[in-house]
Every structure is written in C-alpha cells, then in structure tokens.
C-alpha cells in the first residue's frame, strides 16, 4: 500500500518521495511539489475533498485524485 498525500491525517507532515511526472501537472511542481520537499496536511474539506496543504511553504488546495498520485514518507514525531 503506497503512502501518498491522500493517506495523511490532519496535522501530519511528510517528505515527498516520488510521483509520475506524466500524471502530475508541471504547475504543481513549480509551486514547490518536488521530491525532498515537505508537505503538511492542514485541513480536509467537509466530504473529504479537496485537501488543504502546506507544500514547501506554499499554502494550496488540491483534489484527492491528484493527491493520491504523490508518494510520501511520513515524518514521525519523536515523542
């Protein structure tokens, strides 16, 4: 099971790993969605879609169908 942005819970942070360049539009990359950058899930819209994220400092919202194509690695918070 892939861990994608879609799998994040509210408040969780992750590092972007990989995604299929043909599926993710260039614009999203230009807004900071690049492998190695941090993504945090800030809010989920009622009904679950879209997702309000902080990607590399950019605050934006994308739909689940895009979010589920971006693989991430969860940043575990040290307790």
């Amino acid at each position: 099971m892939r861990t994608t942005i879609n799998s994040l819970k509210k408040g969780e942070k992750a590092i972007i790993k990989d995604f299929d360049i043909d599926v993710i539009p260039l614009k999203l990359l230009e807004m900071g969605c690049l492998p190695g950058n941090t993504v945090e899930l800030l809010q989920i819209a009622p009904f679950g879609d879209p997702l309000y994220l902080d990607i590399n400092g950019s605050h934006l919202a994308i739909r689940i169908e895009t979010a589920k194509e971006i693989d991430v690695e969860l940043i575990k918070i040290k307790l």
Partner: protein
Amino acid sequence: MINQNINVALIGNPNTGKTSVFNQLTGLNQQVGNYPGITVEKKIGFCKLSHNIKANILDLPGTYSLNASSIDENVVIELMLNKNDKLYPDVALVVTDVENLKRNLLLFTQIKDLEIPTILVINMADRMAHKGITLNIPYLEEHLKTKIALISSRKGFGIDELKKLIVTYKSISNEPCLSASVIDPEYFNSLRKAFPNQLLYKLWLVITQDVNFLNLERKEIQGSFTKSHSDLKRLQQKETIKRYQFINDVLKEGLKVDATIAKDFRSKLDRVLTHKIWGYVIFFAILFVIFQSIFDWSKVPMDFIDSSFASLSTLANNTLPAGVLTNLISQGIIPGIGGILIFIPQIAFLFLFISILEESGYMSRVVFLMDKIMRKFGLSGKSVVPLISGTACAIPAIMATRNIENWKERLITILVTPFTTCSARLPVYAIIIALVIPDTRVLGVFNLQGLTLMLLYLLGFGMAIFSAYILNKILKIKGKTFFVVEMPNYKLPMFKNVAINVIEKTKAFVFGAGKIILAISIVLWFLASYGPGTKFKNADEIIRAKTANSTLSAQELENKVASYKLENSYIGIMGKTIEPAISPLGYDWKIGIAVISSFAAREVFVGTLATIYSVGGSDNENTIKNKMAAEINPATGKKIFNFASGISLLLFYAFALQCASTLAITRKETNSWKWPVGQLIFMSGFAYIVALIAYQILK
C-alpha cells in the same frame, strides 16, 4: 535631458499584491483592453518616474512560471520572447510576497534568464515583523544579480524608491541566474552550436511551449531537436528542481525566520471558516447579508436614475424640434440608456462584496468548501463566483469563469450561469408579482409576494445546478482535470484595489451589455414606430372616426392613437403573428410584443408594456398596474393578467435566455457558435414548455 518613454512589465505570482503595485504606480491612469484574438485582459497604465522619464506599465496576468498552462500565462511568454512587440519591456519588475519568496523566486529566475534587466520587488514588507522574517538585502542582490525594492503596497512605502530604481534600469545586470544548459548539458550544447545567436533559455521555451516566435520558425528547431512529450516534461521537471536548488541555496543565507516570533492568524481563522458546519453556516449567512444589503441599498439610487431619465426624456421631447429624430431620442435612446444605467447600483454593490471577499482571501476558502459539492454537478469550486455574480449580470459572471482550469467544468459553468436570476429580471418579476400575487402574509410573518420572489431566485439557482448535472452526463469532453487553488493569507481588503475592481466590472456590464441593448432599443423603436400599410398611416383619422361619439380628453385620444399605431406597426404585426403560438401560455399579442422586445434586455418588457397599455410617457408603476389589471381578453371575457398567466409569465422569464448580450459573451468565451445557439434553443424551448404547462394546469 531628453524625454524618454520606457516599457515596464509587471510580472508575478497571483496574490503577491501585484495589482496593488500597479495601482500605486499608475493611479487611475490605466486602461483595460484585450489582447487581439483572445479573451485575456490587457492592462496598461502610465506613470511619471522622474521629470523626464515616463513609463508604460503593463500589468501581465499573474502566473507561477513561464511554462504556461493557460492562455493567460501564454500572454506572458509571448510578450517576453518577442523583441519586436512594441510593449516588449525595457525592464521587468517581478513582484513577490515576502512570505512566499521561495516559490515566487521561481518565476524571477526564469525572467532573469531571458536576459532582460529585472528588478526584484519584495512586497508585503510590513508583515516581516509579524512573521519573524529578516532579509539580507545586499546578499540577495549579489547572488540574484539584481536590485531589490522592499515595499509595502498596502502601507504605501517603498514606492518612490521603486520608481527611482526603475529609472536606473540600464545599470542592472542582465546576467542569467541559471545557465540553461545545466538542465541537460549534451542537448543544450548541440542547441547552442546550431543557434549560436539565440538565448539558450529562449530556445528552450520555444521548444516546450506553443508560442509564436517571429524570428525563428518552430520547424527549424523541431527538425533535429524534437524530443518526445514525456522527455520534455522530464527535462522541465529537472529545470524546476535545479531552479529550486539555486533558490534554496540563496535563501539559506539571505532569508532568516525566527519561528518563535511568527504568529499564525491564518490557521486559527481557517479552522473556523473551513469547519464542516460553521464553514457553511458562515458562508450562507454572508450570502444572505449580501443579498439583503444589495436590495436595500439599491432602491434609492435606482429610483433616482429612473425618475431622472423619465424627466430627461420629457425634456428632450419638449425642447428639441418636433420630428422623427427627436422621437427616437426621447422614446428610444434616452429610455434605452436609462434602462442600462439603472442597474449600475445593484451590479456595483454585488461586485463590491465579491471583490472584498476575494481581496480578503476568504473566497479561496469558499472554493475549498464548495468544490466537492459542485463537482457532483459537473462544476468546480471555482464556479461559485460566477454563479453568484450571475445574480447581478451574466456578463461579468461569464468572464469570471476564466480561472477554471478544466475546460468541461468551465464550459458547463458558462452555460448554466444565465439561469441565475439576474438584476434585469427583477422589474419583470416585480410588476407581475404585484399584479397576480395577493399582498398577504403567510404564517403571519412572511410576505407572500416577497416569498414568491425568493422562490424565483431559488428556482434560478436550482435550475442552474440541475442543468449542470444533466450537461455533465451528456457532454463527452475529455480534458486533464487539474485543480489547484492557492490559499493566500488573510488580509484587510485595500480600498483602492476594490474600487478599481468594481469600476472595471461595472464598465464591463455598461459597455458590454450596454452597446447591444442600446442598438436593439433603437431597432425596436423603429419597429414600433413604423408600420406597413394604410392602417398605420391613417391611425389618427381612424381613431378619431371611431371615437367621434364619445368624449375623450386630448391625452386619452392621443393614447388611443398611439396604441392603435403600435398594434399596426411592424412589431405589432410580429406580435399578432406569434399570438397563436403563445396563447396556450395565456399571453395575447400585446404581451407577445413585450416578450419580443425584451430580447434586447429583459427590463425593456416593462417599458414596452407601458407603451402598449397606452400610459403615454410616464412609467408610473401603479398606473401600469391598474391598466394591466383591467385588460380583458376579448375572446373569453376574462382578465388577461390572472394568476395562471402571471405564473406562466414568471416561469417563462425565469428560464428563457432572452439577453442578446449574454449570447454575445458566451460566443466570445467559448469561441464557437454551437454553444450559444444550443443554449438559446434549449432555454427558450424549456421556458416555453414550462410556461405552457403552468398555464394549462392553473387556468
């Protein structure tokens, strides 16, 4: 000292306050036009930089990068690549927001690589303290090879320094930030060998974009250097990564954030405004307040405009020499213009509210809240603004669909927006409701007439959503679906920006719809003032003969003549001709005339009725009402305007596409005829059937 005129291009991400900077530099010396052939707005302004240097400032559409994904963004590239364009900039100002500098700099590095003198404008400097941000300006200037203007367009500081900086543009370095060849050294080396005189980065843009580059034929480049679509995308990804690496390195030293100071107002507010219950409650409450206020505030100005134009019309009639032209002016042109201007209060107020919501950043949250729901009907969260704007006027509303990325969602929004109840329908609704709906209270609280009006509004929205749903199922349009909405920081709307925005949108209505309405009013006046045959020509004698035995005042006689003339004019004949088609709906030829004329603009309906029911020159609602209430159908002996025909009329106007201006804008924005024509046929057909059924059931 010679006088100089230089071209300055304002570029930047959306939400960086670029428009504020533009407004600060140009004040009201700005013009909005169109780029030829496409529906993108061209904003140019003028600014005096120093006593002998003036600047033409071109405010380009906001974009995140030169890799265009919409026509808006294409415009930016086209300009930046074409040295022969007369607006080609001597200097580029890249406007950035200090809180989003990392992302904003992507565009900056791309512009810089085009080897145009570029000034980095860092806006919203007033927020630095709040967020614990400090900048090392000399370091940044050195590493980014530019000059920096730190400003706050909101507080108004830094603008003078910016102007001084622009004047020194020749001394700013044109060196690129990133050498394009790092993207793929081998490929770029061969490009360089083939085209030694061209900028590498420019070549790259031509290859990856669909742009017209006048000096080089795309074919030349494509021949030996074509790469597959996938490969190009991979290289673009690499380019983006390289640029961000560069930016990160520079900002590591150049920008420091003290997280302990940073206050986070945004997330607190977000939690409430996007809450699954409170979010919607607040949104609908805001909508309610907006509509209520618009109604209340518009009454006085509207009455004022109404009576002013009525007086103007009488004045023209009395002072100008008698004749056809005078009649055209006082009965066709002046009322026509009055009919356009009377909607300015409502439209301006609505756009005032929408503009404030957008400037404050709240609108993005609304889009966020509504997207999922809207998608069920084939629309986008971004369709909210057009749908709400449609209650003022469909024209600016349809123009507002330009930011919807997905073509299918945008098309559906354009097609269904005219179902929402626009301001022009209100006079029609008002008079019919006054005629056929009793003025009583329901449950002791709700005024029945007010309730009917509200129901009509809801019907409009409902129909819009419902047709969107159907269209979504029927239309087979594939397209990449890509949705992203930036969630900007909340900020207090700046009065200047809001005001200029409102003026622009109102102008769109006045000049867009206005010209068409005026032209049609002129044509209609002719159709109503001339008629074929002897009946029309001899109207005066015929009526005198008919009424020889009854005692009528001069005014009443005149009215009767006017009414007879109308019946036998071109438009009267048209009305009579369609009568058999509309009598199943409960209408007679008189209403038929009014319906035909209101194709110019729905509000013409009331004016035409005034003429038909021979109320002479005044538009006094009560008098028209009484006259209409008294009208009897000669065949049945019953009232023409009864409950059944009233409801039928209301429904007809709720659903019919009767605004020629809307057709025109739909054609423009969809670039084809099939959509507006289809819209016309469907909506008219639907309106007809519903009105028919309603009348037949209720009569």
